[in-house]
């Protein structure tokens, strides 16, 4: 596609519900990143894929957070048993090359999650 596409753009969940956020990166991009951006804050790293391999998941805040990219393209971020502190904008970014220090990251518009 022309850019990184994320869906849904907005999601309201009741506390305890599971949610799934989708990221469709730019075609051919090797690297894919997930970030969490709380209100008034900068994006915080969650996890990184190179093709289908999840090379870094050190930023995932708990075992309720899970991400996958099974075929090396579309990625899904899943949050189980959502809590109010999970409310944030979840950003996806992709890059043609491996790693953000070697190429430009292209960001999607984000998925805004509100947990009631």
């Amino acid at each position, binding site marked *: 596609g022309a*850019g990184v596409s994320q869906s849904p753009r907005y999601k309201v969940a009741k506390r305890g519900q599971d949610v799934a956020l989708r990221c469709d990166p730019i075609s051919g991009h090797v690297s894919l990143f997930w970030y969490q951006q709380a209100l008034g804050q*900068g994006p915080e790293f969650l996890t990184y894929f190179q093709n289908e391999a999840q090379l*870094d998941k050190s930023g995932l805040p708990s075992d309720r957070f899970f991400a996958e990219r099974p075929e090396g393209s579309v990625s899904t971020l899943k949050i189980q048993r959502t809590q109010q502190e999970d409310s944030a904008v979840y950003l996806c970014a992709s890059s043609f090359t491996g790693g953000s220090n070697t190429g*430009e990251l292209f960001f*999607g518009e984000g998925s805004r999650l509100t947990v009631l």
Partner: protein
Amino acid sequence: AQSVTQPDIHITVSEGASLELRCNYSYGATPYLFWYVQSPGQGLQLLLKYFSGDTLVQGIKGFEAEFKRSQSSFNLRKPSVHWSDAAEYFCAVVGDTGRRALTFGSGTRLQVQP
């Protein structure tokens, strides 16, 4: 661990005035430095980046930034601000080894007065 500090949470400038947004980083080796802009409802867009070489880098939309190793700074500048520059600006760093993900600062919100 790498970190970024943007000391100014909110800045207001008049249209046509010059702008400087401050960024200080903490990293032990050679950093790769970036400035991103985020407009309401938009994704983050790369303004410019510094990897090596000339310490003054030019970016899109008339922005530039200067890398000063002695001050651990990478301040963003623009000689004449336009109303469309109103947005949130983020400085980010990544090291040349180890973790590949960008570490972002907390951002500076720019307001432009007519």
